[in-house]
């Protein structure tokens, strides 16, 4: 009989996820994306690649859009993490969510949570972005369905809808 595989060391992680403080025993090697999906059960954050290629896992850490698949969960100790699940409040979807829905900024929907989170970070720091600023902010997020035309329209519609 071979020995069982060595379980990676865990440590207690304390961070704020979608406005609520959590404490979880998390492997030191766990990526933020895996922590959110497997431990916090927030599967809205998608994994589309083998690390930092596609942007589907984009979440906000202290308000900044980051790919959660290339940041360790342990690095988020004490920090503020927001995922797609945070945007709809009391059943009301956010202006970006509404715009992506109504303008068909989403087709298969797999890149959508990451795309919306990247756009959310943009609109928070720059409420009236011009086209090139929208493109730059979303340049790390790949979409294979839309050709990006309706994604740009969605961000603009959300921008016009105000906060």
């Amino acid at each position, binding site marked *: 009989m071979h020995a069982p595989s060595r379980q990676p060391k865990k440590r207690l992680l304390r961070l704020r996820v979608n406005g609520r403080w959590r404490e979880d025993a998390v492997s030191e090697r766990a990526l933020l994306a895996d922590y959110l999906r497997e431990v916090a059960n927030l599967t809205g954050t998608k994994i*589309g690649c083998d690390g930092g290629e596609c942007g589907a896992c984009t979440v906000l850490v202290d308000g900044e859009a980051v790919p959660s698949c290339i940041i360790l969960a342990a690095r988020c100790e004490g920090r503020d993490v927001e995922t797609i699940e945070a945007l709809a409040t009391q059943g009301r979807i956010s202006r970006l969510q509404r715009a992506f829905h109504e303008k*068909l900024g989403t087709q298969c929907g797999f890149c959508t949570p990451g795309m919306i989170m990247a756009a959310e970070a943009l609109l928070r720091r720059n409420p009236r972005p011009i086209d090139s600023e929208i493109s730059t902010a979303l340049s790390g997020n790949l979409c294979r369905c839309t050709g990006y035309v309706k994604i740009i329209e969605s961000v603009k519609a959300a921008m016009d809808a105000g906060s």
Partner: protein
Amino acid sequence: MTMDLHTEGKPAHRGVPLIDGIEKVTGRARYTADLDHTDALVGRILRSPVSHGEILRLDISKARMLEGVLAVVTGDDCPHTYGVLPIAMNEYPLARGRVRYRGEPVAAVAAIDAETAERALGLIELEVKKLPAYYTSEDARASGAELLHDNKPGNVEREVHHQFGDVGQGFAAADLIRQEKFCCAEINHAQIEPHASLAEFNSSTGRLTVQTVSQVGYYLHLMLARCLDLDSSRIRVIKPFIGGGFGARVETLNFEIVTALLARASATKVMMQLTREETFITHRARPQTDIQLKLGMKKDGRITACECEVVQRGGAYAGYGIITILYAGALLHGLYDISAVKYDGYRVYANLPPCGAMRGHGSVDTRHAFECLVDRMAGELGLDPIAVRRANLLQAPTSTMNDLMINSYGLAECIDKVERASKWHERIGRMPPGKGLGMACSHYVSGAAKPIHFTGEPHAVVNLKLDFDGGVTALTGAADIGQGSSTMVAIAVAETLDISLDRVRVIAADTAVTPKDNGAYSSRITFMVGNAAIDAAKKLKAVLVAAAARKLEARPEDIECAGEVFRVGTGDQSNLPFADVVAAALVDEGAITVKGSFTCPPEAQGGKHRGGAVGSTMGFSYAAQVVEVSVDDATGRVTVDKIWVALDCGHAINPLAVEGQIQGSVWMGMGQAICEETRYLDGLPAHASLLEYRMPTIMDSPPIETHIVESHDPYGPFGAKEASEGALAGFPPALVNAVANAIGIELNELPISPDRVMDSLIQRRRQTRVASALKAAS
């Protein structure tokens, strides 16, 4: 919700958002990897380290002994081949005796966690004797090459030789004959969701449930029964949300069967999530293709003859190959009126992951060559590219020489639209240096009129259920993979019954619940499932009208129903609301279930010649596009500045979704044209990440101005045809023609990456220097 679907006149509307859109934008949509798998084992696959070899020894005993490993399976556990074509199933889910490409699954494990599963893979001992491997069609076809499959001499999976009309006479009548060779790289679907499958086997009931990324659950269901020797009634295949398909998931994929094998071997639930690299290896995409094309043209632009040879490097197994090589020839027809066409196609085996169907299946690379050559010949004859296309239009209804039905044909209007929108005549030839315009046309089928798994059954069945709650539930096997097919079904039902869209619920793609459907491929759903949905809704309407007639003591033919109100057409005294009519209808027999179906008649199913069914359809979509580019002659970089595209989709059932599909397909054509390419180094994929496989980002993506043309197909649902594929094939040639217009260089390879553009520029500079040196010397 922006909807204006009621009223008889069916006013033009902007369309409706997807009925499952809220779930997608809120992150609540569950894709396969999001399904609850807390108690599931983790599956992992051991893959061949060589491109071609004989398996000498495969020892799994140590892996099996590892604590936490519950199952290890190999080719010994599945002696059955699988494949999408009943006549060409030559692939095992796990290799048996021989491996034919690097990355081919050899064994698989299910363990309590990922670390244990990966450790177990490392304990499997595999000894392989290398055999010669071939990575190009040319090498694989060379005399003396080792055969990948013993029954396929020359490593040619299928040869196609079709000739329609008198090609010799056609070329004799031509004022200009030109022949060129085009090479198109292999490309990939690269849907953003990596492959995943969740399988559960209940050993006490003998039932298997698989939730997976399949575009065609029904094929997978058949293959699971075959490969696991299971009674098909014990299997259930469910489609969760799917993160894109584009053809990648039409065929049953090896990991789906492997996951089921592991679930049965461990008598539990197994989650298999492939990495992006593995997803690239398990690809079934557009093959590397060489095209020799010869065209004859009259001075007025009429095409007199076409001779085309296509060689596709299909990879190691059959997959869809036969269909792809047939499509490449069949769809030389149906776009223009050409009276003589000769086609020779060769589908070749090579030691690379198998190719398959990708958006525009089979038609794209051939259409690229055709539209490029037509443009060049137009230039040589001093004709305008648009005028040449106009000189070759068809007249609908007609049938092509290879017996394809053309029932509606909006190409002329598509051309008019993009000509005007792009200000073609004002701008062509007057563009600043380095800028150019190009155009091209294309078409695609609205569903294969003869299904691959031919059973004689209807092409589509939709069930509707109406019960005490007044909700109409549509059950369809059609897989919504993001294209919006479930929304289309809801609209078709709501419009036919003249009820609110919100009253309709769609349950799709669960083989235990929904009627069998041939799935999401060949752009068949709107045409076939849409027609079946309308048929079902008409039957339901008849039941409701009969109930209303009884209640109102009138004849059914006098009952009018509109906007969820039933009344006697001749008087206005009594209006019955929908709920009352439903209650009346339920009194007789309880919950109402009706079935609608759609069948393509035999005369639509193509010619009698061998392979003649491929390309057959009830309705072709048509597209024209103009592309504007800038070319930097210092770097070879081509930037697409703007696209104008018009597509004849017959009738836009949901214009918003039609626009999205047109934009997405044109953009996918752009990726193939400017940057996408799979590359293998000794069979090892060198492109297997989303950084190395360069698809356009938002920064590379231009505005796409979309025009919808409605030719009202006589057989389409509300006159509709497909909208998701037809425009793709026109982009690459429109781009190459625009580059020629901008810098005078004719490119014959795709993608037109900066290195290829630079090579051509350097070659031209050299030729210019030689020419001037020679001139000076003489």
